[in-house]
């Protein structure tokens, strides 16, 4: 392992640290123990690495997290403004940038408010405290007597100085290691955090200001495209370059092993050359045998796997004499991130330095892998985050960054903008792997679950750049001197990988949960919003309804009878109340209502969903008129921003549950555009109602936890409407008709 990539051990350790941070910060507010240094500050101690006063009366705040469309820069600006006693409009946010920003690894797992927010809160409180102390010296008063408002410090006798006036007297004032001794504000004193504010990026995005990496234009920039193999495993046998080289505008053709790319003066010329090259390329017949898509539930458990027991308890406890055993198997399709904008990057090799602008989720980890593949020193490569279309996880963004860098290396001095075409994204970006789940439980005569056994099979959902033991960048695997993929990391509970949320959220004295990590990847796998939590909660919460029925209990009462966590109970009861849940209500063959519950990662946000369905028995189309969700995300930074995330997750889950699946035959992916990979459209969108539970507990992240319960509640609604259950996602019309 070279470069700055994490070793596997460090990766596991850093996750362990996150657990520790969480456990400590979720303790009682009155705790006397000294507050631990926020996670993100530990390797980024310098105050000037987080906060800088600028001459124009603004403050620049640096974060290592990336804006992915989730609104994180706005929320972080609110946190900084709150602690600095400033208007949030005067905060300028700079997101992940290896040339000048902190290293916060990846933007994933709904942890940005928790991690970067805690660091920025501490850094901002420290900056304010330093500024007040300097002002106190100037005014010859005690620091505690000063007040700060909108960036102006006022003394008791009315003298004033702005932060910038104070700082201008000493250029080193805000430089140094953060001691994290300045106490941040109490949540009860917040005036900006907790208020709905408008996203800082929307006025520009909605009027056509350059906002995305796709909008970057540099002097002398050329446009590039790649030519990918038609299927996994195919090798380039021959390439007749003549036709493409003779096309107008072509400035470079890059071939290295199986990697083929072309650059041209104009974008349409690059696309024409790409098409010419694709026609002229001969690929080997090699292929990876893909699973039978119609039988994932049976096929995935047959693949080579490493089995780990991720949770076990009470195995030696005796079982009651009279028990009823119930079991069921479930599956979920492979999913595409299906970003509306195909992946894109700009790369520029200038004076021996490679600069790459990318919509990566991990600027620093990507830099390490790029340096390895380019055989450059890490410090000779910089990765600067620029926004792309919403990615919802690990799409082709990192791969496009390497593609662009490989072309830029061949065109030293000229900036290269490389964008994937639609079929590149749909056939070569990582997919959320298909999943198979099996649950068995035993019910006692009193309706309690007395035994629980759970198995999940899937490939790793964590194959990002920067992981130990290889390189996780597409083009690197087919170069003349190829790199190998990193093996999947071991991500312990409660985070988990394919086993995220595999441990059930209920009080079950006797249970065992096994994760079968599949070792061979028939289709390229990676991280998609919630990792395995979506499939696991679909299975667990579908099964809870199935055993509630076997126990002749109402699904809500049955869950509450097995759930002690008061915040979990509260969201279930709130969702049921808002939806008008009627215990014991049965469907009429067409209409039905279902509910489901999840605490994301078993340590994150709480969410309960109630979904209504209308089933068209003739066409097999399931319509969803209404979805209700109650959520508890702890302290809310931007309520409207959080609602937007939760709503978005609900609708994406609906899309996944009803429609989405990567299509493939035994040789290759066949869903290559939007006609093959359908997503939810406007006429299919239901009314969505959300209630956010009021909480001053630590923020839990809002980006992902709404998806899993939505899917399960929909499956339960269908079962209640029709008396038939669909255990394989998506619930396509064919599957609906077959079930009926």
């Amino acid at each position: 392992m070279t470069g700055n990539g994490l070793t596997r051990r460090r990766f596991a350790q850093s996750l362990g640290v996150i657990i520790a941070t969480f456990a400590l910060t979720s303790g009682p507010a009155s705790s006397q123990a000294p507050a631990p240094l926020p996670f993100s500050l530990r390797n980024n101690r310098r105050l000037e690495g987080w906060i800088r006063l600028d001459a124009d009366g603004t403050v620049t705040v640096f974060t290592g997290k990336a804006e992915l469309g989730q609104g994180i820069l706005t929320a972080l600006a609110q946190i900084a403004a709150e602690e600095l006693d400033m208007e949030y409009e005067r905060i300028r946010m700079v997101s992940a940038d290896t040339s000048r920003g902190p290293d916060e690894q990846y933007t994933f797992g709904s942890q940005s408010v928790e991690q970067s927010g805690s660091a920025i809160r501490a850094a901002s409180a420290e900056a304010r405290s330093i500024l007040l102390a300097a002002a106190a010296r100037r005014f010859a008063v005690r620091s505690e007597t000063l007040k700060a408002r909108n960036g102006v410090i006022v003394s008791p006798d009315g003298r004033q100085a702005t932060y910038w006036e104070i700082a201008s007297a000493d250029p080193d004032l805000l430089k140094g290691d953060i001691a994290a001794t300045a106490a941040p504000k109490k949540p009860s004193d917040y005036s900006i955090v907790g208020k709905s504010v408008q996203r800082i990026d929307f006025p520009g995005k909605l009027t056509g200001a350059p906002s995305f990496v796709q909008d970057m234009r540099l002097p002398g920039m050329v446009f590039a495209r790649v030519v990918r193999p038609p299927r996994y495993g195919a090798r380039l046998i021959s390439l007749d370059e003549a036709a493409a080289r003779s096309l107008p505008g072509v400035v470079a053709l890059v071939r290295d092993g199986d990697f083929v790319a072309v650059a041209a003066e104009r974008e349409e010329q690059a696309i024409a050359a790409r098409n010419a090259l694709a026609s002229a390329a001969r690929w080997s017949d090699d292929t990876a045998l893909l699973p039978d898509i119609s039988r994932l539930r049976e096929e995935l458990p047959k693949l080579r796997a490493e089995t780990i027991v991720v949770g076990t308890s009470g195995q030696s406890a005796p079982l009651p004499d009279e028990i009823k055993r119930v079991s069921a198997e479930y599956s979920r399709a492979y999913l595409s991130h299906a970003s509306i904008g195909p992946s894109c990057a700009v790369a520029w090799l200038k004076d021996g330095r490679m600069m790459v602008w990318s919509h990566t989720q991990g600027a620093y980890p990507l830099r390490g892998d790029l340096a390895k593949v380019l055989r450059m020193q890490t410090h000779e490569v910089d990765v600067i985050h620029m926004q792309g279309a919403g990615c919802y996880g690990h799409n082709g963004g990192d791969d496009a960054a390497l593609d662009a860098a490989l072309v830029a290396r061949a065109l030293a001095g000229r900036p290269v903008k490389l964008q994937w075409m639609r079929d590149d994204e749909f056939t070569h970006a990582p997919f959320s792997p298909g999943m198979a789940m099996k649950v068995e439980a035993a019910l006692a005569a009193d309706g309690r679950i007395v035994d629980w056994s759970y198995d999940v099979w899937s490939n790793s959902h964590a194959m990002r750049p920067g992981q130990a033991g290889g390189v996780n960048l597409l083009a690197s695997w087919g170069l003349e001197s190829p790199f190998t993929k990193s093996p999947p990391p071991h991500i312990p509970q409660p985070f988990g990988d394919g086993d995220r949320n595999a441990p059930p959220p209920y009080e079950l004295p006797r249970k065992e949960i096994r994760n079968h990590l599949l070792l061979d990847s028939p289709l390229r796998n990676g991280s998609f919003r919630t990792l395995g939590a979506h499939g696991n909660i679909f299975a667990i919460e579908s099964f809870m309804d199935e055993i509630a029925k076997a126990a002749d209990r109402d699904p809500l009462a049955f869950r509450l009878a097995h759930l002690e966590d008061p915040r979990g109970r509260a969201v279930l009861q709130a969702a049921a109340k808002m939806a008008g849940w009627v215990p014991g209500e049965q469907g009429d063959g067409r209409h039905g209502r279902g509910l489901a519950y999840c605490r994301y990662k078993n340590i994150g946000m709480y969410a309960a969903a109630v979904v209504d369905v209308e089933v068209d028995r003739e066409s097999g189309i399931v319509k969803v008129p209404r979805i209700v969700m109650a959520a508890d995300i702890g302290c809310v930074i931007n309520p409207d921003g959080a609602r937007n995330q939760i709503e978005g997750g609900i609708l994406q889950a609906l899309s996944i549950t009803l429609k989405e699946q990567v299509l493939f035959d035994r040789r290759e992916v066949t869903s290559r555009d939007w006609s093959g990979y359908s997503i939810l459209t406007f006429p299919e969108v239901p009314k969505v109602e959300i209630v956010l539970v009021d909480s001053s507990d630590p923020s839990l992240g809002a980006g992902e936890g709404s998806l899993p319960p939505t899917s399960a509640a929909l499956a339960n609604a269908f079962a209640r409407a029709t008396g038939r259950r669909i255990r394989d996602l998506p619930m396509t019309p064919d599957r609906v008709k077959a079930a009926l």
Partner: protein
Amino acid sequence: MGESMSYRLTVNGETHVVNAAGDTPLLYVLRNDLGLNGPKFGCGLGQCGACAAIVGKDLQRTCSIALQDIGGDEVITLEGLGTAEKPHPLQKSFVDEQAAQCGYCSNGMIVAAKALLDRNRDPSEDDIKNALADQLCRCGAHNRIVRAVRRAAAELER
């Protein structure tokens, strides 16, 4: 690609002379010759609507219409509606309703809504959903977008 030629093109009220092959999709001319950011490349197949603009009076997928076929029709893009300082009622209502997440599809949403409001000043919720049926949003901002269009319609009626 055909031979490069000169084309006269009126975009957002200004006339430009563009040198490009006649079969160049309008999208690349708007983005790369005229430096506009509103229309986005999404699929190049006319399926997603991210590249939408108004050509003449019609909503068009600019990835699927050739430069040589524009003729004298004026092209209106997102930039032609308004600016951050002086937004069109639709742009203002999208901000007011926070009707986006990543914002990559927003160009198509706003431009398609403009085409709808040009022919129907008081669209119902279903009218809006049907008008946007071929505009894809992956983030799940749909309900906010519908509210924003209704809000803009009300604003334009006042």
